[in-house]
């Protein structure tokens, strides 16, 4: 057999090597698509999820940028409480209390009316969205995803004592019924948080507490995903080509579970926003005159028979945000794992 042709590897393909070439099935004209871009394209096909994303983006942008603008819109009121020249910066502040306009209907001055204390509902809604998003970012973005990834991946990849500790800790948190742990901690340390951090203290406390209760679930999930990913041959392949464990985690495991974490985190955001609402509802969340959607609902309860809009507006806003995150989560999951849809 003639083996000479192999002596110069980079020469033009010979007749025999022709059999390896399959250019025709590679469609050279098309741009190659990464899995991320594929998923993105699939996500865009999900009208419900895209709609939710747009709506959510509007909410977020409104809460961040419309609130400061709103505080510059409106006339200067010449006289109130014997004080003159009260501008929109004041009466459109989410915290400003004006007992002369309590439970006012929607007007050009107060776009969605005022609540029991004469606070502007529109401003409070926007501020409430900010709070929900803040909690979501801290709890899910930082603690849930951060701690979840670190502990989940390490426990899944290395196992051992870390794995056992994680399992025990998760058992403990799971055994704490419902929100009881959060109620306990926020109830006990609320005063301290207020003393230390002022009005926003309880919010930080709520965020940290909720984060503390939520991350073990994420860690357990990430651990599971890591374990199943570890079984994939490309991880083993990486080891055979001398990739160190740390690099395998960073280069192969993390990128591959990131999409799943994304989905889980999106769905966790819904849960977290709800839990913040529950804590505010039972008086353990944001301190008045601050605003949060849960607090707004709580404050409106006594007034429901007389001013139902005060309850409906924050409830509706919360519903939309929570549903939007759920839709986006569903959409992301379908986008990352097309099989899950049917």
């Amino acid at each position, binding site marked *: 057999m003639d083996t000479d042709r*192999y002596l110069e590897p980079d020469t033009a393909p010979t007749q025999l*090597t022709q059999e390896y070439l399959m250019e025709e099935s*590679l469609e*050279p004209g098309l741009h*190659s698509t990464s899995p991320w871009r594929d998923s993105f394209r699939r996500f865009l096909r999900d009208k419900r999820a895209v709609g939710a994303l747009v709506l959510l983006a509007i909410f977020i942008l409104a809460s961040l940028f419309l609130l400061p603008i709103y505080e510059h819109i409106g006339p200067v009121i010449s006289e109130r409480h014997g004080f003159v020249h009260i501008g929109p910066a004041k009466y459109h502040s989410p915290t400003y209390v004006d007992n002369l306009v309590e439970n006012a209907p929607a007007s050009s001055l107060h776009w969605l009316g005022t609540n029991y204390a004469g606070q502007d509902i529109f401003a409070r809604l926007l501020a409430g969205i900010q709070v929900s998003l803040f909690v979501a970012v801290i709890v899910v973005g930082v603690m849930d995803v951060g701690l979840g990834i670190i502990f989940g991946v390490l426990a899944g990849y290395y196992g051992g004592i870390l794995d056992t500790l994680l399992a025990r800790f998760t058992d403990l948190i799971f055994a704490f019924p419902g929100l009881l742990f959060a109620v306990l901690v926020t109830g006990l340390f609320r005063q301290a948080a207020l003393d230390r951090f002022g009005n926003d203290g309880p919010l930080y406390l709520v965020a940290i507490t909720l984060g503390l209760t939520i991350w073990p679930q994420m860690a357990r999930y990430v651990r599971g995903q890591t374990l199943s990913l570890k079984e994939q*041959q*490309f991880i083993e392949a990486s080891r055979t*080509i*001398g990739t160190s464990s740390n690099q395998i985690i960073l280069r192969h495991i993390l990128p*591959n579970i990131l999409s799943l974490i994304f989905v889980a985190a999106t769905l966790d955001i819904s849960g977290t926003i709800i839990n913040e609402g529950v804590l505010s509802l039972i008086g353990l969340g944001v301190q008045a005159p601050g605003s949060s959607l849960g607090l707004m609902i709580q404050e409106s309860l006594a007034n429901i028979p007389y001013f139902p809009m005060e309850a409906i507006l924050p409830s509706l806003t919360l519903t939309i945000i929570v549903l939007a995150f759920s839709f986006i989560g569903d959409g992301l999951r379908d986008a990352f794992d097309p099989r899950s849809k049917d």
Partner: protein
Amino acid sequence: MADETMLATSMTTDALLDVQDLKVYFPMTGGLLQRGGAVRAVDGVNFTIRRGETLGLVGESGCGKSTTGRAILQLIPVTGGKVIFNGMDITKLSPKAVRQKRAEMQMVFQDPFSSLDPRYTVAQIIGEPLVNFKRGNNREIDQRIRELLSTVGLPTNSLNRYPHEFSGGQRQRVGLARALALNPSLLIADEPVSALDVSVQAQVLNLMEDLQQKLGLAYLFISHNLSVVRHISQRVAVMYLGRIVEITASRQLYAQPLHPYTKALLSAIPMPDPVLEATRQRIVLAGDLPSPVAPPSGCHFHPRCPRAQALGNPERCRQESPTLTMATLDHAVACHFPEA
């Protein structure tokens, strides 16, 4: 191909890989209150592979052939025995040193779909070992990647594509290119073609043969497909329940199997020839493959062994585990009553 001479020459050179009494046990651990035994996946395996040679390792599922491959690469902890590679026992090395050694022996995996990271481009996949071992600067690495692509017969426009855009056969080529990147002298191929379509298998087999010739590679070719192993290997080892029962030159094994298990295995393979099939004498083994958790005593094969049955189930088969002994020159068999 000049097969005889090849065998003769390789016998004179040193062994590239010498596996001595290799044992891999998997502990069966449960929770706090569970006691576990051990799965004796690999239970005292001996063989050598010479430079540039292909050793076929065949056996049915669960016989420990894949575990053997992984244990050689130190991908799983070895319970006992030695793996001497290039004269050095690598079971005693530190993890870091093992990583360095792995540059010289590489692996090709069975599953063309799960063996490539779906989020990496072909260039990144093939380049990963080069980056790991710092084989040159970016330009040199890029050059080497292109070279490897052409070596395995993939067009250069594959570079920035992702695995999901390739067929199974093409992906196996990517896997091969990755394995070849560091110029290894030993390639452990774990069922490299069994997941491929029959019409594509031949492409990959031919490529592997060509690469061996060109690069002087030695292969440990693990497969359950005896036809494929026969085709590609110079020597073949047959495994049964964690042990090697027969090892010899490929031609010898297929022409004159000594172990009753090998005989049965060979007779069970359907031949693509209806005339032959109609007249063939088959040895159909009774029963299932026993579990490696509780393998039969003595010779692991004795409960299913037609020869033992023919001999009236000698006590010795049940009591004594046969050792792998030389029956003829370069033909070892582990049987108390090998057939002449």
